[in-house]
């Protein structure tokens, strides 16, 4: 995956680029809005990671000019402004996801990977498959090995999101945002309990688990077999 990071804090930028490369990605860097726009306009990136406040040209204006040129590369906005209003402005400017600072690198990586996948035409599929687990988005049914599994509506949405991003790590915050549409951080880890309930339904009676916990990061749907 080719990633462009536009960030004006040199130390944070160096750390980010190094960590992204260690995670197996190709990462380019720019330190101001103009340089970032120039690199991004060249194309070829799967995801852009853009700081909101940049010298020369701010992040939102960078995204807006890219979108005006018809460039639809997914953009993850990083920002010290984390209020509901700020998120709305960021997404309205053409950003695809918004991550308030400070963030955990695992969170940023998971979000960038999910965004990169979004560019592939996964959305249009009506049936998601992971191993012998099948989820029919239209009929709203779930089967594993031909056996029907009954899920609550919220459990269905949780599984749908996990399967849509199968093979990619999703964090608890991402689940809270995409399945519950909340952008705050509950003090207690309520999400874990929801995931373990779901796991009991789809994995418990079967020979190998499909829903895995990634320590310190989140969850991933994957058929290891």
């Amino acid at each position, binding site marked *: 995956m080719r990633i462009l990071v536009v960030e004006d804090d040199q130390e944070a930028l160096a750390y980010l680029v190094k960590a992204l490369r260690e995670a197996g990605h190709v990462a380019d860097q720019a330190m101001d809005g103009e340089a970032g726009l120039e690199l991004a306009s060249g194309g070829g990136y799967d995801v852009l990671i853009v700081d909101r406040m940049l010298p020369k040209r701010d992040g939102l204006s960078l995204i807006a000019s890219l979108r005006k040129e018809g460039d639809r590369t997914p953009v993850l906005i990083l920002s010290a402004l*984390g209020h509901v209003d700020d998120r709305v402005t960021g997404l309205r400017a053409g950003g695809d996801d918004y991550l308030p600072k400070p963030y955990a690198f695992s969170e940023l990586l998971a979000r960038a990977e999910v965004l990169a996948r979004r560019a592939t035409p996964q959305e249009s599929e009506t049936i998601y498959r992971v191993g012998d687990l099948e989820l029919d988005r239209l009929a709203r049914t779930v089967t594993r090995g031909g056996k029907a599994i009954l899920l609550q509506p919220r459990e269905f949405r949780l599984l749908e999101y996990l399967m849509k991003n199968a093979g990619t790590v999703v964090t608890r915050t991402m689940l809270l945002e995409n399945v519950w549409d*909340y952008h705050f*951080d509950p*003090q207690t880890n309520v999400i874990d*309990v929801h995931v373990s309930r779901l796991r009991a339904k789809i994995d418990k009676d079967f020979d190998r688990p499909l829903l895995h916990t990634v320590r310190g990061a989140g969850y991933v749907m994957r058929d290891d077999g």
Partner: protein
Amino acid sequence: MASPARLRLFRTTAFRLSAIFLAVFSIFSTLMIGYIVKSTMELLEGQTLEAVGRELDELAAQYQLGGIVRLARVVDLRSQQPGASLYLIADPDGAKVAGNVAFVPSAILDNPRPEPQTVPYRGAEETGGFGRRVALVRVFELPAGYRLLVGRDVSERNQLIEITIRALLVTMGLMVVLGLASWLFVSHRVLKRIDSMAATSRRIIAGDLTGRLEVTGTGDEFDRLAESLNTMLERIERLMEGLKEVSDNIAHDLKTPLTRMRTRVEAVLSGARDEHEYRDALQATIDDADQLIRTFDALLMIARAEAGSSGTAFSTVDVTSVAEDVFELYEPLSEEAGAELTFTANGPAPVAGIRELLAQALANLVDNALKYAEEGAEKPRVTISVEREADVVRLAVADNGPGIPPEDRARATERFVRLEKSRSKPGAGLGLSLVAAVARLHHGALSLEANGPGLRAVLILPAAKEIANAA
């Protein structure tokens, strides 16, 4: 050179207003005096001329009957009567033949003119000089060089007009003097009040926030101004106190974990450790950092909520559906913790607000309730309820934990206050103050009540009129 104090007196609003008023008044009075004098004179002159005209007609008739001799006799007769008009018949040399006028300037008789004219004269009974007598006369030339003068005394009329003018002038002068005096008085008083206000303001600017403007109790505009400014000062003082308290608290609640973090890192670095120990120390450091970030986020949230909505348009939010979502979010967790979480509502409850913030506030309350319910004697029970009344929506979270003593309840919603008993629990203690801030942002309130046993936290929000369309 005028002293600065006097200059200042001239620069006051009172002075400008007084000066304008005086000028307008003087112009107006002058015009009025002129008008009164002119119309009075016209009226009196008209009457005089009419009388003189009548006399002339009669005398002309007498002259027709008996010539100059008869005329002279009639004039002498008439001259004897009291309040008589003025008469004079002069021979061609200007000598008096008959009448009650002793002397008029000779030019008047030399150039007889029938048009009315004002002349000085001396009456028959007076001696020497012209005196102050003035008459309005008409002079006719009779055949054979004789002249007839008929007129009336107008000295009294002129005196009357003079008196009137003098009276008006004196009045005007008095007005000017009084105006100046009242301006001096008012200006002086106003300046004194303003000076005292300015002095107090300077003291407050210098940092003494306890200073207040003087209120004299007369209820005048200065008192009203002083009262409003004092209210403003009180609010500022409260805000400053709050700010100070918050910064003290920030210093404490942020410095403590920072110090802990630093000490830990230092301790780990100071000796030889194995990789496992390093990992643990780093993990603990990340956890501390996360806690700090959460505290910071909560502080910023509260600050923003307290500053009021920053352009976020409120939308109609159904509190019942928000509560249902949060209930559903926490239900598995409470089940795992062995608690009983229930949800009741009496139908949709629309309010104008921000869904995200309401959900966060409620999640905070439920989080707290679940934590404290575990400390209770009975099986932990937490109830989320939504009651829609006529004007308000009550969103309540009740638990059966130890509750908060009544004397501590008001303090519980203040920033950073963690009541003594709950010090052992995790959380920065910002939970309830964040909920209170969200309530204020929605023009509502957070009320903490006893639940016997336990605590019942109620968010009271003003109900919106429309029926919620949120799912």
